[in-house]
Each structure stands twice: as structure tokens, then as C-alpha cells.
């Protein structure tokens, strides 16, 4: 939130009271702006610090770069569209929906072209899904590096998608019997491609045109994006213009040079699609320090898993020695973000905060060292280990690792 006053009154004023109460304020007296001053509304001027932020040193150019969702400023499970992190490989394609086409080619009975209007005539679904970049927390493999969950965990968002089940579109073209893989392709300057196994495509993928009720944002692939629930964000091809059907995967750049997970042995895993269970405490966190003293403290965070629902989140305040099961609040939907809370009475001493998510597959988050023991430090992707925040008595919070 914006800077918050403590409400403690200077002694002299105490008898009379807080002038913000005893004196009539302008907003209580004079008219504010009327309706239609803001046909499409934006946040309060006092929330101007709540923005996506990048880390300039990460990339050579902003057109192939990333910025991060300000998780520490958000609550609940829905990410507002304006704050969904961006990851582009050739900048934001600005496409008039009237000029957009979706082609289905390859191992189909009929190679086809659909306009946006054609797609709006198929039956639709609405689903809440998280989208996490496989490189989220990638900068933390070698140790605590960035002070803020926006930077360590902010390559994630969670919105409601409206779209057509990919299955229906594929069936409209007619799949050949040897159709086993798909290659979605973007219309942007990187012409992004990935290989998707047919089983996933026919299971729960959507060809989406809306997020959180309104049209997709340009940064998120307007007018059309592939939704690949629970799987790494790079596969959710934006500005989707073509889907080729084939019998083998393509092994394209984003599934060889990138998005393969190098192990300590020098071998690398490929096609590591699922995003495993993960969580992070969003408040307190380095960008959301504790501004109040001891007493009631809301510990809050988000958890998610590509395997389905989150069944439990445990929170530790002593660096993982003892755990308490947190309260999951709000809708609990498969492959969606979950919001958890632990309400504590803070005694003012140092805390080592951790959260540990479990999913309906029975998987739970490993510690950082467990993950390193299994994979080394060069994997870049799929770092879903337990994060530690060090809360000091003065309320400052730091990204640390513990033994």
C-alpha cells in the first residue's frame, strides 16, 4: 500500500483529536470528478508505485526482456490485467483483430484459416489459470540475490481466460491418425514456436481471446493466445497465428537452447513442461516490510501447482524448524493461484519466514539445497524451492538462505 500513517497522535492534539477527523476535509465538502471523467478507469494517484518493474541488467534490449508482477502489492488470486508480468522476444505486436488469422496446417483433413469472428462462434469456456515463466526464480539458483518477491517470484500471473477449447478447433480441421504433436506459432517479430504433445492439446488447452472479462492485453498476445494450463509460460504462445499438426516434436530454439534444464552432470532435461508446486510469502517481504510494531501480523502469500489444486500450505516463522498449516482463502481451483494467510501475534523478535506448498499430486516444495542436490545450480528453469525471508525487529525484510 501507499505510505500509511500510524494514527498515533501527538500528545498536544490528543485531547482534541486527529485534525483529519475534527476538521472538515476537502473531499468531504467539495464535489470530486463526475462520471465519464474516466471512461476506462485507472488506479488512484496514490497507487502509482504499484507497477510492473524490470531488472535492466538482465537483458540486452527491452524488446527481448521481462518485467515482473508486483506480487507484494496484490491480494487474492486474480492479477489485474495491467500488472501481469511481460515477457517478449520481439516486443509487443500490435495487431488489429480484423487483420488476424489462425491457420491450422499439417496432419489434418483440411488445412484451414479462421478469422477472429469465426473463432467467436465456437463454444467457449472460462477458466482461472496461473501462468508462470519457467525461468521464474531463475536468478536465485546460486543463492539469495534479489530483494523482493516481485523480482524473485514475479514472473507469474493468474487471470480468468475465455476461449475456445483447442480440441474443438482441431476437430474442425480433422486430425489424421498419426497426429501426435502440435506447433503453435506467434505472429510477432520472434514468430515464437513450441512443440505441444497432442494429449495436452486435447485435454485442457484453450485458444483464448479474453482475460479477466475483457480482450487480452497486447502484452499478453491480443487478439489470441494459447492457454496451456499448468505448463511453463513460454508455451502459451501469444499473438497465436498458426498451429501445425505433426507426428514429431520440432525441437525449436525455445525447447533446446532455452527451456531445457542443464543438470550438474552436463546432461540436460528437455520437455520439462509442468510447473511444480511453489509458493512465496508476499507480505511481509523485502518490498513490503513490517511498518507496525509487535502484535497482530498478517502473513500472506500465494501458492500454485501445474499438477492441479493446492491442498495445503505450511508456513514456518523459524526458518523451517517448525511449521503451521496456513488458511487457504478464496476459490481453490486447479492450476490456479491460491491465496494463503497465517495470522500471528508477533512478539517483535526476528523471524525466518518460509512457506511450503503441497498439491493434489502429493508433491511439496523442496528446500533450496534439496533442489540443488538433485540438479546442481545451472538449471535456470523450474526453481520451485522454498524461499526464506528474514524479518528483523525493525520490520525490514531480506532475502536470505538458511542452513
Amino acid at each position, binding site marked *: 500500500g501507499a505510505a500509511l500513517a500510524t494514527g498515533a497522535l501527538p500528545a498536544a492534539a490528543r485531547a482534541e483529536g486527529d485534525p483529519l477527523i475534527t476538521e472538515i476535509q476537502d473531499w468531504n465538502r467539495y464535489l470530486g470528478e463526475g462520471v465519464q471523467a474516466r471512461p476506462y478507469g485507472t488506479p488512484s494517484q496514490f497507487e502509482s508505485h504499484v507497477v510492473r518493474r524490470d*531488472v*535492466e*541488467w538482465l*537483458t540486452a*534490449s527491452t524488446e*527481448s526482456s521481462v518485467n515482473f508482477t508486483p506480487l507484494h502489492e496484490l491480494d487474492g488470486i486474480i492479477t489485474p490485467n495491467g500488472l501481469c508480468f511481460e515477457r517478449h*522476444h520481439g516486443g509487443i505486436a500490435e495487431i488489429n483483430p480484423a487483420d488476424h488469422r489462425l*491457420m*491450422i496446417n499439417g496432419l489434418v483433413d*483440411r*488445412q*484451414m*484459416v*479462421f478469422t477472429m469472428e469465426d473463432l467467436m*462462434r465456437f463454444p467457449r469456456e472460462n477458466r482461472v489459470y496461473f501462468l508462470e515463466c519457467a*525461468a521464474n526464480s531463475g536468478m536465485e539458483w546460486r543463492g*539469495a*540475490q534479489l530483494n523482493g518477491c516481485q523480482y524473485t517470484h514475479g514472473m507469474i500471473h493468474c487471470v480468468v481466460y475465455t476461449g475456445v477449447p483447442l480440441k*474443438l478447433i482441431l*476437430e*474442425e480441421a*480433422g486430425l489424421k491418425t498419426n497426429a501426435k504433436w502440435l506447433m503453435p506459432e506467434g505472429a510477432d517479430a*520472434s*514468430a515464437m*514456436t513450441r512443440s505441444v504433445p497432442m494429449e495436452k492439446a486435447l485435454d485442457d488447452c484453450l485458444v483464448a481471446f479474453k482475460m479477466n472479462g475483457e480482450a487480452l492485453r497486447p502484452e499478453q498476445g491480443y487478439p489470441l493466445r494459447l492457454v496451456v494450463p499448468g505448463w511453463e509460460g513460454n508455451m502459451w504462445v501469444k499473438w497465436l497465428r498458426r498451429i501445425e499438426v*505433426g507426428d514429431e*516434436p*520440432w*525441437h525449436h*530454439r525455445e525447447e*533446446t*537452447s532455452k527451456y*531445457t534444464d*542443464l543438470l550438474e*552432470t552436463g*546432461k*540436460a*532435461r*528437455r*520437455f*520439462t513442461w509442468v510447473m511444480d508446486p511453489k509458493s512465496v510469502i508476499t507480505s511481509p517481504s*523485502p518490498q513490503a516490510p513490517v511498518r507496525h510494531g509487535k502484535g497482530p501480523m498478517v502473513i500472506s502469500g500465494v501458492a500454485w501447482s501445474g499438477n492441479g489444486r493446492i491442498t495445503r500450505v*505450511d508456513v514456518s516463522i523459524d*526458518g523451517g524448524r*517448525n*511449521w503451521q498449516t496456513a488458511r487457504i482463502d478464496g476459490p481453490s481451483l486447479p492450476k490456479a493461484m491460491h491465496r494463503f494467510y497465517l495470522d500471528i501475534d508477533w512478539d517483535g523478535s526476528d523471524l*525466518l519466514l518460509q512457506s511450503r506448498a*503441497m498439491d493434489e499430486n502429493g*508433491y*511439496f516444495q*523442496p528446500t533450496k539445497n534439496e533442489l540443488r542436490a538433485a*540438479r546442481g*545450480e*545451472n538449471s535456470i528453469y523450474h526453481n520451485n524451492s522454498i524461499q526464506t525471508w*528474514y524479518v528483523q525487529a525493525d520490520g525490514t525484510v*531480506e*532475502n536470505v*538462505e*538458511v*542452513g
Partner: protein
Amino acid sequence: DDSGKFGLGREATPAEVAAWDIDIRPDGQGLPVGSGNVLDGEELYTNACAVCHGDFGEGVGRWPVLAGGHDTLTHERPEKTIGSYWPYLSTVYDYVRRAMPYGDARSLSDDDVYAITAYLLYLNDIVLDEDFVLSNENFLEIRLPNERNFTPDDRDQEPFYAAKTEPCMTDCKDGPVQITMRARILDVTPGTVDDDAAAGVGGVD
């Protein structure tokens, strides 16, 4: 098989499919007829690529490195290049054709891409002959050295996933927990440090 259940959309024309069907697979599917040699590739590369990727594929500043890095995959800072890491040559052709040069994609002819790909093989010491000509005919003969080092996803075998036990809740560690590392020591958080000073400490790829 005349039309789908909904009868929506229309058939694509051959010209339309040809215009967009530009992808290449490791088995050669999609490779256009054509060829190019190392020397032509060098010229094209020097003009259109070297400004970012460096004369020898070494990468300028933070732009991607394309060559070198042999035997670094087990090092603390592995250098993942076409020669050291990529499994298939088809990926080079496909990617350069669809996305490079950065900022002017789709500007190269098919033969240009063959020539540049040949030159990238040369920069990576995979072909040593300056007169080497790469074409749709000999393309599949070239294998990249790291091909066999890619394995399927077996995360489910990792101990913490394989176990599927209930995690520990109480007294999970002996004695108070110690801090072993602090982000504040190497603080590269935006707003706290000069971006250039931080460059290179980590990355999203």
C-alpha cells in the same frame, strides 16, 4: 470429410500454407531447396549479425553468444552455444529464418540462411572447411556434438517428489536455524544498485 462439425473457417490456399509453413524439424521436414557456403555466410553474418553477436559469435555486451563454450556445461558458468549445447542444426536454420536479424526478421532469403548456418557451423568448429556448402541435400549429415545429452523429464524420480511422504512439521532441524547467505551482500535489486554494475550475475534466458 467435407467440413467440420461447425462448418466454421475456410480451407487455406496452398499459397497461404506455403507463406506461413516456414518451420524446420530435425528430420529435415520443412527444409527449402537451396544452399549457401561459409564464405557467403561470413559476409552476410558480418553485415547483419556481428554487431550484436560479435565477429566470432562471442556476443557483444549482453547480446547472445553463438559460438564457443565447448566442454563448459559442467562448469560454474556454462556457456551454452550452438556448438556446445544445441542438439540439432535444424533449430539454427529455423530460428534464424523466423527471427533474425533481430529487428528485421524474415528479411533473409533461403539461400542466405543456408550460408549463415554454414558459417555458424564454421564458427563453432563443426565444419572446418571454408569452402563448405550447406544445402537441403547434405543438411541431415551434420550432427551437433551435444545431441545425445538431452534426456526426458524425470523430475518425478527426484527424492522429494518420489517420496510422496508427509513433510516434517515439528522440530525439523536441530537447534535454531542459521542464515547462510544474504541477498544484501550482493544486492542487485533494481533501485539499490547500478544496473551495469550488476550485469552478468545471473539471468533469465
